[in-house]
């Protein structure tokens, strides 16, 4: 990251860092997709009867594992981005590119954790509730 801004610095930053501003929303977005998928498929199964609810349940449990894998990957990448082990810093209060960079990693990492918890929570009914009753 250079110190000199460029007249079209938005585009520059977007190349360098925009992905990580979006990245902080990737994990919660995965949660949202998983949630919508659960809700939509179960509604279809319970109202139309196709696919049968047993199959929907198994498919959604697989989808849960997939969502968790995606979130784990995102979390791992943002952890590397944050790099608390390498920098030894847990907070990032200074106006430097490094601090901004690690902060975004930190926020993304925490959001990955909360998203994983959310996915597990939402998947629990699939395990404990049998069907549509």
């Amino acid at each position, binding site marked *: 990251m250079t*110190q000199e801004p460029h*007249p079209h610095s938005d585009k520059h930053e977007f190349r360098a860092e925009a992905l990580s501003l979006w990245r902080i929303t990737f994990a919660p977005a995965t*949660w949202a997709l998983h949630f919508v998928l659960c809700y*939509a498929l179960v509604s279809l199964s*319970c109202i*139309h009867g196709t696919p049968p609810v047993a199959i929907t349940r198994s498919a959604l449990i697989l989808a849960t594992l997939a969502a968790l894998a995606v979130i784990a990957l995102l979390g791992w990448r943002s952890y590397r981005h944050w790099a608390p082990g390498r920098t030894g810093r847990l*907070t990032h209060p200074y106006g430097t*590119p490094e601090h901004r960079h690690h902060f975004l990693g930190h926020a993304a990492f925490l959001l990955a954790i909360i998203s994983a918890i959310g996915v597990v929570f939402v998947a629990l009914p699939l395990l404990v509730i049998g069907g549509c009753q």
Partner: protein
Amino acid sequence: MTEHENRSPLPFPPSEQALAEPVPEDLRAAQVARLRSAWARPKGWRYWSSVNSSQVGKWYCLTALFFMLCAGVMALIIRLQLAVPENDLISADRFNQLFTMHGSAMMFLFAVPMFEAISLFLLPALLGARDMSFPRLSAFGYWCFLIGGVFVLSSILFDVAPRAGWFMYPPLATQDEGPGSDIWLLGLSFIEIASLAAAVELIVGVLKCRAPGMRVNLMPLYAWYVLVVGGMILFAFPPLIAGDLLFELERSLDWPFFDPTRGGDPMLWQHLFWIFGHPEVYIVFLPSIAITAMVIPTVARRPIVGYSWIVLSAVGVGFLSFGLWVHHMFTTGLPSLSLGFFSAASEAVVIPTGIQLFAFLATLMVGRVTMSLPLLWITGALAVFTLGGLTGVMLAIAPFDFQVHDTYFIVAHLHYTLFGGMIFPVIAGVYYFFPFFRKRMLSPRLGRWAFWLIFSGFNLCFLPMHLTGLLGMPRRVYTYSSGLGWEALNLTSTVGAFVIAAGFAVFVWDLLRPRRNQPDAPRNPWNAGTLEWAHDIPVEDWGVRSIPYVTSRYPLWQQPKLLQRMDQGRYYLPDSDEGARETLVTSVIDAKPVLIQRLTGPSWIPLVAAIFTGGCFIFPTFGLYWPAILCGLLAGGAILIWLWTATARPPRQAEKDAGLGLSLPTYASGPDSVGWWAIWITMLGDATAFSSILFGFFFYWTAQAQFPPPGAAHADGVAVAVAALALIASWALVVLARRTNRLQRVGRARAALITSTLCAGTGALALALAVWPLDPTAHVYPAIVCTIALWIGVHTVLGMVMQLYCLAGSLTGKLTPHHDADLGNVTLFWNFLALSSLAACAVIGIAPRLL
């Protein structure tokens, strides 16, 4: 483009040497005089043409406060009626109007607008900006809010207020006679549009108007919350606007979206309402927590603990809150698996919500706390909100909810969350920020009185309601018989309500009493560290004297020379050489200066546009469609005049000195310009509304055994295909026009624009012809198909106006190869329109033949 690329690197960040250089005394005085005259507030009756955020923010706050007091009076009448059994103070019908209006006004006329009002007021100061990027848009939003609010609220004086509950469930609300439901639908849609305008203004403000150097990790937490809440408004309000559209089409044109006898389904409204309604609760709650996040570090006299954690919880709550809506519908007979998902998500949202509260407690624990009035209100808030949160955890468990659904337990719960999560923190904010708003202090003695009255009155009123509910008293009954064990509890609640009212009377008196003899407040009375306390006393309307270079989260604590340098005009834009209002636009992530943005000044046009927009929404309530259409056209005309005369005009100089040796462009198009971001954000909301209508189509499909019904007439396939092709061609030509215009081939660009308008017209016409033979009153299938076509048709007409606007700009020299912001924005609009046209044509042309 090329002119910038040859330039040497800009002198940013500024060197310590440059910052230390003093400004000569006479130059400084001249700068002050010029700035003052550029930002002078209009005198006399012209005062009402003001557009800067400090004025508009003040009107907005006071109007929202007034509406809240009105809704509070309604609550008092409700409590009086319920004080004793078999009371006949008011009629059942009047009672229905009162509780409907109490809820609607508190939500739509107070809670959400108050967030916008306070943010409008605070945000420029927090970010070190002169003003937000679209002052006239804020003013327009305010006038819409005022007109719509007065219209909706005054209906109760004429005994025609909506009376089906604040969520307007069909079929009760669709079949209700009299204009009540229409007043709710149209009046509040109008206000929702104002909310979207405010969301655009605030999001763009946070992303593009931060002081140079204020990177995303340095933003005041309030700004993070505004960003999250703005985003939530964009995804939460449009489903309601779409729902309102369907609802109003049913009421005025008899299109049966919610009528089960013709294939409709009342549940669709419940879904659309609560997809809005639940996030709405967090839209109300998060900004108030944001105020807490500003007050806590100040009273603890140290930076906040866990900045990233709070950002996490704000963003996390923002997402999770969209997975909760069905917990308002637990008793509607959905499959238990589906209930399980929403129950689980409702429990999960507690985690991020709790994290921010723990971060605040941690800050207080490790800081050196000074007890002050704002902190008193914050502690009240934490106590009350925690109780509301705990009953929330109980209610998220579906079987418990089955038991207490529609009882006073719910009333107790929601008031605990809203008082604790919104009222108390907002009042804390009023005490904390009053010296900034009014340059005077509020009375600590009256403040303590108000606190203890409201706090004890609140618990006296709402704590017994838990029990009233558990004893089985249903909500929304206008009276009850004696002998059910509810008498003493209800009487206690009524007494409590009047104690709250007494507390508010003290508070409002202190707020509004004349202050001519009172001394000025100290500049930074709480010793806070954030930029809003760099304000000027006595008041100056220029926002900041010069826009500082920020390198820390608490600049007033951590950058010791900052305040002095700001005052002496040693930072950016210390002058207004052209006598115009300007602010600095910076880049999204690292806040590097990119542009000097010319801001619009006082004008009547926002008011005129708001009056006509109001007419367009208000006349249909009484079935007066022609005046409404006329008003719509006049509103459109006013907005066009406003845009044409005041936005994206080619500047006199291509570059200007921004101070500290930094020379910046004065015109931008594409992602560097604020207008482009505004269109992007608006279209995101627009796309959400359109998706909600498409969701309706698929909702009918999942909820019904046969949708489309067997033998139903479909939209004409050929005409739909022609429409899709014509609209895509129109989009491609707009893109081509932008390219060729940039390459100086102005003639070709104009030709492309004309052709694109013709293509768009063809597309709209083909779409109309495709659905023309359908009868939307017969069944919900043709009704939803026609609605989708109508949506695209209206957007296409809008798109054609934009194409012609650019053409006119090109012909008159407003739009040139170098100054093509308008064309860039129109291209962005058409990108969205092209995508939604394709989706629409696929849904009405292909999907019914496959399903």
